[in-house]
């Protein structure tokens, strides 16, 4: 177990995630022909949110959000500590469930529809995430991230090109980027306003923001795992992938839920399952 990376993750992931969000907003603005906010704007926003009154429909909403944050830190923690990859996936799922529950607690029609859409999104990306775990296991013969990351073996992506592409596809859903920003988008311009986060203000919205920063760093870590044992290359590729996601976000209209679910399943079946089949037959 690598305690150092664990501490580094817990302490610096929000910083890195916030910076990424700031760079994201800046690049998005430039792509749209605007100047955009300062790079540190996400931090200013969150600080401002914490100075506001916590106005919620039900107090339990905030409790769920705290659980959302706690489980996300826990998930990222075990990932960066080099523990079991299966556990990472299941606790990530649990963390997201808390967000859905919090949205249902808001009892507003917007957040209720948002929560339903979030469940559909989970349904859309979960098969591919499971294929990701299976693929990594088949290529490295272990679930332990530390072993995967440190053992000298050929780079995992050489065995998993299909899973890599499929994972990129669902990463767009996870990062809440167009065309798959159904349940909530970065801009409140949607038929369901802000979707699952509509009913949150002040500190609880700030907590959601911080949780997303943790989540994004975790997701980028999962991308870089494809390049194990060369993790520096992996980190570089993960950042490039993030830039690609910003580009995709700016070049697509929002899809409907039907397209999101079915296309993700087709991608999971063809790229994910196909890759695993190939590994079983020829690996």
């Amino acid at each position, binding site marked *: 177990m690598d305690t150092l990376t664990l501490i580094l993750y817990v302490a610096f992931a929000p910083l890195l995630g916030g910076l990424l969000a700031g760079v994201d907003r800046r690049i998005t603005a430039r792509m749209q*022909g605007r100047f955009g906010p300062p790079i540190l704007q996400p931090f200013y926003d969150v600080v401002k949110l914490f100075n506001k009154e916590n106005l919620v429909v039900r107090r339990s909403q905030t409790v769920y959000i705290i659980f959302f944050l706690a489980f996300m830190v826990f998930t990222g923690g075990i990932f960066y500590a080099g523990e079991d990859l299966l556990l990472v996936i299941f606790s990530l799922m649990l963390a997201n469930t808390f967000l859905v529950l919090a949205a249902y607690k808001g009892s507003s029609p917007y957040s209720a529809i948002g929560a339903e859409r979030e469940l559909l999104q989970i349904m859309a990306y979960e098969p591919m995430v499971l294929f990701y775990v299976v693929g990594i296991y088949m290529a490295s013969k272990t679930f332990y991230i530390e072993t995967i990351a440190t053992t000298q073996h050929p780079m995992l992506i050489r065995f998993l090109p299909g899973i890599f592409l499929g994972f990129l596809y669902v990463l767009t859903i996870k990062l809440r980027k167009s065309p798959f920003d159904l349940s909530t988008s970065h801009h409140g311009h949607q038929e369901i306003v802000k979707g699952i986060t509509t009913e949150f203000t002040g500190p609880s919205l700030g907590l959601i923001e911080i949780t997303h920063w943790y989540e994004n760093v975790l997701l980028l870590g999962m991308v870089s795992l494809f390049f194990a044992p060369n993790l520096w290359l992996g980190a570089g590729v993960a950042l490039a992938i993030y830039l690609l996601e910003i580009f995709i976000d700016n070049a697509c209209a929002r899809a409907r839920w039907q397209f999101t679910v079915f296309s993700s399943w087709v991608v999971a079946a063809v790229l994910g399952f196909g890759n695993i089949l190939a590994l079983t037959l020829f690996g």
Partner: protein
Amino acid sequence: MPFFTISKTILRSLFGRPATLMYPAVPREYVEGSRGHIEIAVESCSFCSLCQRKCPTEALSVDRETKIWKIDRLRCIACNFCAEACPKKCLSMATGYSPAVTSPGETEEHHA
């Protein structure tokens, strides 16, 4: 290609200059003839109050006795009707918006 058809436009914007201005740090340049606000050369005003009668929003008031020309900037719609009607040609339309006022109904006075 039916995907990413906007890529040329967004990549050009990404590496080019933004289309917006850093207003108000960079002031906006107005084109000549832009209707911003009415200005008065009050020295040549004869206080005939024709502008007051022509004004469609009743933003102007002229006092012949005290020689005061008043304008309520919030009512003024910058239509240039008064400047066209003015017999002495002392009213003119200038570019740029008039500065903010602190309370509605506040008038700007010009004494001869």
